[in-house]
């Protein structure tokens, strides 16, 4: 939390007075607050993010600020794909795992069928030994 008279990271970056009801103050008052807000401002713009946060319930604003900060930094790192490249990579990973899983499950079901074929005689022998 900001001290009395101490501007939040967003207002520091914008070089404006940090008022009492500043929408950014609760989420950009940490050490990296100014740097994170700089990325947000460069990619999305302060007014867009301010409107976005104002339309959300207070309880959800913290998570929204974090995710917006993440997307802004991702977009600065990769101007073409942003955070969507991460989604593509994960999607591909899931697809590969699903394929691998399907193949192994087929093998497992074949193994089970083979075990079943080998066992009837053993099962009968086991019952006859029980006499």
């Amino acid at each position, binding site marked *: 939390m900001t001290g009395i008279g101490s501007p939040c990271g967003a207002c520091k970056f914008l070089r404006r007075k940090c008022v009492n009801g500043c929408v950014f103050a609760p989420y950009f008052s940490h050490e990296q607050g100014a740097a994170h807000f700089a990325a947000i401002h460069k*990619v*999305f*713009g302060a*007014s*867009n993010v301010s*409107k*976005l946060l104002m339309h*959300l319930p207070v309880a*959800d604003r913290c*998570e*929204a600020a*974090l*995710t*917006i900060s*993440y*997307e802004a930094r991702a*977009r600065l790192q990769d*101007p*073409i*794909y*942003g*955070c*969507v490249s*991460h*989604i*593509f990579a*994960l*999607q*591909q*990973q*899931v*697809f590969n*795992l*699903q394929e691998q*899983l*399907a193949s*192994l*499950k087929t*093998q*497992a*079901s074949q*193994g*089970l069928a*083979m*075990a*079943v074929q*080998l*066992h*009837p*005689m*053993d*099962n*009968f*022998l*086991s*019952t*006859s*030994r*029980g*006499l």
Partner: protein
Amino acid sequence: MTVKGGTSQACAACKYQRRKCSAGCQLARYFPPDNPRMFQNAHKLFGVSNILRIINNLKTQEEKEEAMRTIIYESKVRDRYPVHGCYGIIVELHCKINQAELELEAVNAQLNFYRQQQHRMSQSSPPPNHSPPHLQLGNTSPINALPLFQQHPHQSYNGMASGINQHHNSLSNGSNGVVYNTNLEYIESKEGIVNSFWVPCNNFLATQPQFITTQGFPIQQVPEAPQDYDEMHVFFDTVDDRQSYIESKDAYESRYICVHLVRLVLTVVVQVFEADEIRIISHRCSSPPSNASTT
């Protein structure tokens, strides 16, 4: 807003901004007039000037088009999930990957178990024409119990195999069986993503122990049973209780029938012997005694 005297319609960007859509409009190719919502989302998140700055910083047309695709996608996801946006999708994908990896581990363990079992079976396989000893007594016909029980094991094992396959199918249904591709529309069509950050992972964590226990096969340790039939019973007991009950019931019934038949045979034999004894005694009584006692 249409161009005066022209037939081309203004793009969604110019329509929204209520300005003339010139021939050199940079956003016209990305925001067709039939989809105004797409531009509204992008405008709401990025703003026109930021979009133009991002595009103008890129060199090739392909890069610009790719960037616009991702900008449109990102703004669409943010419109749909205002709190978490794309990060929510990333978290859910991470959860899916963890789940798939666990499932892979479990199936690998199952496969190793089958391979070990197969190896053990190949080492200690019985002679092919081995049959259990049957009773063969005098006039009685030999009782061969083998043909009576050949059908039952197959039926019970096939039922169990289908039950396990159904269980596997039910497990795979959790992942929707959707073919994954890099098409953004796949992600857009997902309905399972909610705004709450922790719901997917919590559900995953909640179902994780259930997944492992219902899978049933011995992941940790295969019980070291001296005989194959003991090990086989343990395996099927852990896989499907219902099927294993049926399996053991069949085994119990077959054993019971065997015992019953043996008892039946024994009673018949006893009766035959008793009948012979009675015949001998009656014959001796009816015939004149060879050594009659004299006074």
